[in-house]
């Protein structure tokens, strides 16, 4: 199996911050907005270097989304950032009307997504944001897997015209994608070729999928691993090509099993190539306080859960 090396643990939100620093220097149209969470979003350098291009909105996320929409009228490329819950559920209708339906070139950048937010608990741990954003016509939904990929995605979405939801997280996780890898929106990455089962993972679960694939290899099971960083538009071609080869699939996401990546894959299969699927996702519960690792274990969001799901789905082939 192909080897991936952790270049040193880092948080994906810092990848966002690094991308913003670079954009601040390279793209004069990029402006940043934040709702009283500058430190958590890691955009201090962007702000220090471009104070006039930063808008501190205060604790008013709805207003932030509207202001971002307005800034596009005048040619700006607003990166509106806060915690994932407050960047989606709190402002769904504002995004819907003033950004998505209005076709505004706003980048909604959401940190602390998912259960790995940790100790703050369920009110902050959104597990529905992928579903929320994927339902909006015209919205692009991206969930990169590590620091490098988050940085690359941040740069890529500045060059893409249209509304984007970029989701990243708080904990330090393995950083294993090449630092110079270009980010192609909507293009799934085949991380490992395999023949028995397809594992399609997004975000923090991509690294877990690679570990699972390695463990499975030791058990004589050949797993294909796909990093599906873009959930919408979904790279259906890549999904179908792989599942047609392997005959079954495990989807893995840090999200409720309802409404997220897993259901998008299930739909793709049901309408084009029915096949057995197992979900690695939270089971329609709220999260809770705990360390990221404890929570990933308790809620079944790690390589062990992926491995078990593979064994289950193989029995159903």
């Amino acid at each position, binding site marked *: 199996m192909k080897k991936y090396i952790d270049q040193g643990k880092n948080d994906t939100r810092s990848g966002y911050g690094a991308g913003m620093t670079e954009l601040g220097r390279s793209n004069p149209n990029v*402006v940043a907005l934040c709702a009283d969470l500058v430190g958590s979003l890691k955009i201090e350098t962007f702000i220090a270097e471009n104070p*006039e*291009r930063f*808008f501190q*909105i*205060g604790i*008013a996320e*709805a*207003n*932030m*989304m*509207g*202001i*971002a*929409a*307005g*800034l*596009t*009228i*005048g*040619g*700006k490329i*607003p990166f509106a950032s806060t915690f994932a819950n407050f960047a989606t559920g709190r402002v769904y*209708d*504002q995004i*819907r*009307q*003033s950004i998505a*339906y*209005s*076709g*505004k070139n706003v980048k909604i950048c959401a940190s602390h997504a998912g259960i790995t937010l940790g100790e703050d608990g369920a009110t902050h741990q959104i597990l529905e944001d992928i579903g929320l954003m994927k339902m909006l*016509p*015209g919205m*692009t939904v991206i969930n990169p897997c590590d620091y490098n990929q988050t940085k690359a995605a941040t740069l890529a979405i500045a060059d893409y*015209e*249209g509304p984007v939801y970029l989701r990243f997280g708080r904990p330090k996780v393995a950083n294993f994608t090449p630092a110079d890898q270009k980010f192609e*929106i*909507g*293009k799934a990455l085949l991380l490992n070729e395999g023949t028995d089962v397809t594992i399609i993972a997004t975000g923090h679960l991509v690294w877990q999928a690679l570990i699972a694939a390695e463990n499975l290899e030791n058990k004589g099971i050949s797993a294909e691993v796909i990093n599906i960083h*873009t959930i*919408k*538009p*979904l*790279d259906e071609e890549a999904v179908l090509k792989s599942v047609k080869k392997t005959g079954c699939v495990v989807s893995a996401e840090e999200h409720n099993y309802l409404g997220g990546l897993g259901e998008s894959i299930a739909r793709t299969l049901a309408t084009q190539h029915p096949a057995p699927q197992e979900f690695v996702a939270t089971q329609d519960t709220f999260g809770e306080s705990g360390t990221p690792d404890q929570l990933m274990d308790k809620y079944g969001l790690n390589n062990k859960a992926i491995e078990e799901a593979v064994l289950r789905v193989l029995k159903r082939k």
Partner: protein
Amino acid sequence: MSQLIKYYNSRLDTQKIAPTFEIIKNITMPNIEALEDVVVQTRRDILRMVHKVNSGHPGGSLGCTEFFVSLYHEMMELKDGFDMDGAGEDLFFLSNGHISPVFYSILARKGYFPIEELNTFRLIDSRLQGHPTTHEGLPGIRVASGSLGQGMSVAIGAALAKKLNNDNHLVYSLHGDGELQEGQNWEAIMYAAGNKVDNLISTIDRNGQQIDGPTAEVLPLGNLSEKFTAFGWDVLEIKDGNNLEEVIAGLQEAKSRTGKGKPICIIMNTVMGNGVDFMMHTHAWHGKAPNDDQLETALAQNPETLGDY
């Protein structure tokens, strides 16, 4: 992917088409009498639009007709053609999107799109959606509205972009009074004052009515002027928002106060349904169209001036 991006791009494209018209310049509207003619014709347009499809919002539209005529024919500095950015011209945002009929009539008669297109209001496949939208590429519209309470935030964003671009033009916005019950407005109001967004003039259509009845009964707004003042805005009042001269004077006064560190709020007292006697002073015509007889009566009170579409 391609399908989605095509879908999205197709929208962008329509938004970028700069129509090859010239904005009808203010010089053609030199005096109040001429503007009165536009007002009356606009009323006719509103009534005929909503009557034809038996839906839409005549009450608020009629109440704001003088405001729209003053704004577009006297106040705003407008470029020829339409582009989304609106660099080098004044901008207007309609937050209470349900009064689209008056907006569409004004835009059409200002030259943004063919007047005949008013015929397609609220019909399927039309650019004149029930609530204004950029989605169908109608020139003159810069953001969708209809879900209430979002427009001031957008106007602030556009005003901030103007500042960044060293564009000295102004941003105007209009809001319903009932609409101010939405909390997002107060986020925007607090932000605009705190950040000295002084190139923004937000007008409140103070007709004292909303869907379920008078605002005083549904949820009292109290003294709006005090509220805006307490939030740090420079507030002025237009006593009779259905008097053209007063509206123009109020808007000019507001404009003269821009650039002084405070956003400007105009509390504009209007009569819902103004210009059609049986529609006035009630919420009954907030979102109801006249029937054939009612239309006839209403039009008789507003005889043709510039010519019907």
